């Protein structure tokens, strides 16, 4: 492994289960990954694969009928290492971490801001709680944050209510709020899914800038392989609660080794390849989480399924950075040599 000091957050064998209707849904079932400072980790997967639950677990923002079963979430705060999973959900320490050390932005900027308070007030809440700045300094900080996010006329905009912001501006205000205390980790849960592509491009530009200037570690959750190709340094592909393949963007996009990753890449049309490109849909649909396949979760939809797939494959380290959870990875990886 690389230099330990570079790792901002390290998750090991994390399991988060949901308990509704007297059934247990293993939403996140043994997930491990590291997030490096100043790097973007993209967690990719379809809806229901557990990517958002992973994010909520790190923030300890899980609903009542769910809990962290096993595993470790180690967060490097200054020189100490804090085990987030051991903290109380709404205890003092967790609240101190939330917002100031780890911040989160959400998918829908239309509902993530409170319509009855000004944007400036909502940003300053965070500063009031986590810093010792006085009123005037807080206001100046708010304005400079909005300015950094590229919001025109921040002195005026700071006193406006969310309804007078457009979708893209609200998402910027959200990011401003998240960045207010210079968090070490920014978790972005599908931050641009609700936005138009031209606005998405603006937000991406902004996130790239933040990463470079503040050395923030970013966890970006998305379903779009295009976004991954644009932004990711490292990628983790999730399917039904497991990470099936992880590695650098180069590893995963150029040398996809898990059948699911391959299929995912082949199933979307790529702009510029024209009408004659071949897209291959994945057969079937994602299984019911209460009625999971035995062994490898992807097996029933996989074109290379064999009997050995009835046992859940272990994670195999192909090289220093690239790991995969498949019995037959070798036959795919051979081709890239």
């Amino acid at each position: 492994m690389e230099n330990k000091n570079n790792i901002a957050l390290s998750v090991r064998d994390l399991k988060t289960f949901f308990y509704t209707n007297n059934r247990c849904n293993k939403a996140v079932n043994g997930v491990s990954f590291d997030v490096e400072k100043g790097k973007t980790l993209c967690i990719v997967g379809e809806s229901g694969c557990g990517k958002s639950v992973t994010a909520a677990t790190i923030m300890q923002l899980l609903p009542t009928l769910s809990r962290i079963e096993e595993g470790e979430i180690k967060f490097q705060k200054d020189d100490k290492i804090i085990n987030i999973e051991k903290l109380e959900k709404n205890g003092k320490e967790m609240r101190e971490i939330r917002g100031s050390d780890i911040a989160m932005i959400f998918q829908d900027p239309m509902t993530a801001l409170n319509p009855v308070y000004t944007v400036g007030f909502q940003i300053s809440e965070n500063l009031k709680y986590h810093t010792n700045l006085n009123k005037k300094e807080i206001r100046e900080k708010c304005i400079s944050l909005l300015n950094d996010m590229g919001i025109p006329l921040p002195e005026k905009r700071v006193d406006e209510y969310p309804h007078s912001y457009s979708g893209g501006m609200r998402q910027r205000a959200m990011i401003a709020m998240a960045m207010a205390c210079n968090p070490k980790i920014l978790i972005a849960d599908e931050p641009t899914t609700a936005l138009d592509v031209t606005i998405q491009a603006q937000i991406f530009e902004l996130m790239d800038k933040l990463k470079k200037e503040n050395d923030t570690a970013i966890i970006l959750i998305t379903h779009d392989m295009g976004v991954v190709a644009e932004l990711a340094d490292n990628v983790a592909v999730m399917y039904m609660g497991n990470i099936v393949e992880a590695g650098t963007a180069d590893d995963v996009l150029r040398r996809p080794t898990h059948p699911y990753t391959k299929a995912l890449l082949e199933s979307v049309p790529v702009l510029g390849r024209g009408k004659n490109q071949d897209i291959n849909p994945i057969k079937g649909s994602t299984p019911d989480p209460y009625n999971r396949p035995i062994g490898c979760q992807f097996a029933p939809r996989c074109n290379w399924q064999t009997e050995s797939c009835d046992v859940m494959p272990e994670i195999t380290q192909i090289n220093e950075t690239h790991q995969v959870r498949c019995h037959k990875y070798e036959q795919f990886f051979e081709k890239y040599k």
Partner: protein
Amino acid sequence: MAKSSLDKKFDQIRKREEEKTFSTKKRSRIVNKFLNNRLAVLGLIIFTIIILASIFAPLLSPYDPMRVDLRSMRQPPSFDHWFGTDSTGRDVFTRVLFGGRVSIFIGLGSAILSAVVGIAVGCYAGYKGGWIDVIALRISEIFMSFPQIILVLLLVSITGQSLFNLMAIFILTGWGGMYRLARARMLSLREEEYVQALRSFGLSTFTICYKHMLPNALSPIMVNITLSTAMFILTEAGLSFLGLGVPLNIPTWGNILNVAQDILILQNYWWMWGPVGIVISVFVLCVNFIGDGLRDSTDPSQQG
């Protein structure tokens, strides 16, 4: 750290899941949630008992609720007369049973009929919009801007006392709430894509709004019907107590209570008004429990 009860429950569920012994009974989630609500189930049981008792009143009591028996006036509860007798010797228990028939009929009947009127107008107006909606909305606002009890008193004194007048008045004053509820549901359902799809086939307004949209608006309406049943029963009891409800010769819960106007009876003969008062309260409470239970179980945002 001690395990909380929630944690223990989680452990159980997880164990069952791992042993694959979870119950696979297919019961709707709504029914399940309702049955898990103890108050609602209790309410439903008592509600059923009271209704059955009223329906089968002649089988349960040997007396005639109307027959005056001057030899047994104002008798306290005994084995012969469970709730005692009133000033003219009528058996109070029998009167409560028969009174329940009329009171529940008025309550439930007015609630259902006002719902029918409210839904019929609300669905159409909510879906169509335009001037029909504006007019219906204004009329309902006019009715809702009077204090209901005063409006009812006024109308009763104009039309005179009778059971059907009373129901008509209840419907007239009660449809507004239903109308607004139905209209609000329709306004949000109107934007659903399946409604647009039906419109793209050019189906008639009537089919779209009553056949395809209404079933999706029913669950909050059902809750509201139960709650307004309780309200109408209380209003009937109040009016009859004042002597303005159902004519006094018909036994209703309110009319039985009416005797408590006399200070002498209130002080000395508790059995003439006590039991019926309790029955009214229990019944209304049960209906409210059922209503709350229904509301919780049909609300998808509440987990069970």
